[in-house]
């Protein structure tokens, strides 16, 4: 166990690693230098002084987000994904996921993973529904909340997907880029299918079977956003990985 002094110095070390703390220190220093520069009454020194103060102010007031190392945030996510992966493997579920939109019975979007891709008859899913036992000829499978649902709820105040048409959803999806979740995102219609292409900030380590059944939170949030805009079922037909790029081939509608 660390002594109190040691813990405090460790906390200070980690605080200093935060970009917003470093920005505040550099910004504060620039403001002081700017004020000192203003005291010299030449035209150029006044201008340098103002430049320094302005950059300092921008650093202090624009860089305010806290951050955690990527390894830590990934570790928080991996646990849940592993549980779902084990569950689908043990239940022998091989079908591709379908994102279900909200309905009078369903208050939040759900993912339905069927037993296989031959029988895709999706049962009536409500908020309490988890296991589909195949009654009335419907597909066997499980219904789960998407891993990116909470993430989308955080993003939604900045981009309203509920009142957006599918054709204009691409613009709203750019919010994912703004939050540094993705490098780029495009949604294009090709013939009868839609292509959602996500470029991540790192090489996507997930295997295609996982992406087809229970995508990671970032991909899942984007897919849930598309479902929300479409207000229709969204079936993942196929996925392709190319380095940092992940492409989802989607069928929207029944």
């Amino acid at each position, binding site marked *: 166990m660390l002594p109190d002094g040691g813990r405090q110095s460790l906390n200070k070390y980690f605080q200093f690693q935060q970009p917003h703390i470093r*920005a505040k220190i550099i910004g504060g220093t620039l403001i002081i230098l700017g004020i000192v520069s203003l005291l010299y009454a030449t035209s150029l020194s006044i201008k340098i002084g103002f430049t320094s103060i302005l*950059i300092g102010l921008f650093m202090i007031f624009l*860089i305010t987000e806290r951050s955690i190392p990527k390894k830590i945030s990934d570790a928080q996510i991996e646990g849940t994904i592993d549980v779902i992966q084990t569950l689908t493997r043990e239940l022998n579920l091989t079908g591709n996921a379908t994102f279900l939109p909200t309905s009078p019975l369903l208050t939040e979007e759900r993912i339905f993973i069927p037993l296989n891709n031959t029988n895709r008859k999706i049962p009536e899913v409500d908020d309490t529904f988890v296991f589909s036992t195949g009654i009335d000829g419907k597909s066997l499978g499980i219904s789960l909340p998407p891993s990116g649902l909470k993430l989308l709820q955080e993003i939604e105040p900045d981009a309203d997907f509920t009142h957006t048409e599918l054709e204009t959803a691409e613009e709203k999806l*750019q919010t994912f880029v703004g939050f540094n979740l993705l490098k780029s995102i495009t949604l294009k219609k090709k013939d009868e299918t839609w292509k959602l292409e996500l470029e991540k900030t790192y090489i996507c380590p997930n295997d295609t079977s996982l992406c087809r059944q229970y995508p990671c939170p970032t991909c899942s949030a984007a897919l849930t956003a598309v479902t929300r805009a479409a207000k229709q079922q969204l079936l993942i037909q196929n996925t392709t990985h190319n380095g940092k790029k992940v492409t989802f081939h989607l069928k929207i509608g029944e």
Partner: protein
Amino acid sequence: MSEKITVVFTVWIIAMLFLTGDENLEIFFVLIFIGVLITRELTDVFAPGNLKDRMNSFIYIFLIIFIIIVGKKIITILGI
């Protein structure tokens, strides 16, 4: 995103410092204001709401400075 915008602002301000050289401070401020406005507009789709609000507060401050500069110029021209 906030880091990238800050870098853009910093580069723009330094570029304007070199561009205006020993010219008066007013042109320098107006050019910075234009840069801030352009950046705000171009990042509108990407920037999260709270970042937009903070950028807007800078725009309001620059707008006040801009009004003062224009007011002073009008007074000078009219000779009031």
